[in-house]
């Protein structure tokens, strides 16, 4: 649609069945996502590791090519539960235990409706649990995550514009339920993601309270400098 500046929501899909990989890929494409499919948990970690390794730590890059940086980002992982070797649950644990990837939302898919399995996954930090076969309607539950990424990208552009004009803090136009006052610098992106994740509890089926107040966002807001 000509929006070259806007990078898409990038999903990493993991499934040992070729048939199911094809299906989830098409489902995600139809939902306007960029998709990468892999056949195992270990391949998924490899992909994440490789991609993370390509990220630049140079803050100056933000103003010159932030969109290239974003393109290698994984915004969500969707994985089958039953896989040989590393199960979807094992992958979920590994992702949540890693400092680099724990903020990436993980969705589990399974052909079996086992309540104990579902609660275990949600307790381990899975965002959603989809019963297979997954349908377009199910993926609508991922829209909030996609919107947040879109908003984030828009704000990044705003910051770029602001830095060119050498004005002070950019007042974001968009007020949404996540209460992000300003998009922080590159290194704070991870923190913002975590914040967004905990604030958006609508889609979660678990009843656990997150216990994180929204005051944190304001505190962080104060700590951000104006120089980009």
């Amino acid at each position, binding site marked *: 649609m000509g929006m070259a500046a806007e990078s898409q929501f990038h999903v990493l899909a993991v499934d040992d069945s*070729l*048939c199911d990989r094809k299906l989830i890929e*098409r489902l995600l*494409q*139809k939902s306007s996502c960029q998709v990468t499919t892999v056949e195992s948990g270990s391949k998924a970690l490899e992909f994440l590791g490789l991609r993370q390794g390509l990220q630049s730590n140079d803050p100056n890059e933000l103003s010159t090519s932030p969109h290239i940086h974003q393109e290698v980002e994984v915004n969500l992982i969707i994985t089958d539960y*039953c896989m040989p070797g590393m199960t979807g649950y094992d992958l979920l644990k590994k992702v949540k235990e890693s400092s680099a990837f724990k903020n990436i939302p993980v969705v589990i898919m399974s052909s079996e409706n086992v309540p104990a399995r579902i609660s275990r996954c949600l307790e381990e930090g899975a965002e959603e649990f989809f019963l*297979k*076969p997954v*349908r*377009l309607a199910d993926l609508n539950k991922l829209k909030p995550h996609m919107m947040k990424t879109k908003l984030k990208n828009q704000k990044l552009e705003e910051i770029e514009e602001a830095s060119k004009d050498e004005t002070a803090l950019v007042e974001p136009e968009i007020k949404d339920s996540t209460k992000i006052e300003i998009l922080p610098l590159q290194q704070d992106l991870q923190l913002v993601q975590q914040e967004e994740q905990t604030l958006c509890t609508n889609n979660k089926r678990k009843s656990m309270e997150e216990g994180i107040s929204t005051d944190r966002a304001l505190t962080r807001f104060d700590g951000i400098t104006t120089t980009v």
Partner: protein
Amino acid sequence: MEKRQFRDYTISLYHQGFLDDQFTELKKLQDECSPDFVAEVVSLFFEDCEKLISNMARALDQTGNVDYKLVGSSVHQLKGSSSSVGAKRVKGLCVTLKECCDSQNYEGCVRCLQQVDIEYKSLKGKLQDLFNLEQQIVQAGGRIPQVDI
């Protein structure tokens, strides 16, 4: 004329239980960007059938030393992919086969596996006929009718 045939044939496949609404979901995913999606997915499914049935047959051949774990995991996979494409009858037979496997009912497994084999081949033929009808419509310059089940 072909459109009427196509419509009737499609409806009969659903009514006779060969296909379920997951197949309808597959059609929703097909568009100008992915015009052969349904054909591609079902083709992967049939490849799965061939491979997994062959694995199971080989396992069951080892009379007296059947690896029921292997049979179990193969039928689990086959059940999964049949569910993903809407192959209702195949899926149903997989459920039965899984039960025979779980109870290590050798005769039951052999019989059931034969039925799965016959069923997937039958479905393959029918879907091929359906795709051929689609082709005829398209080649005659027409559009594939939307069939409401």
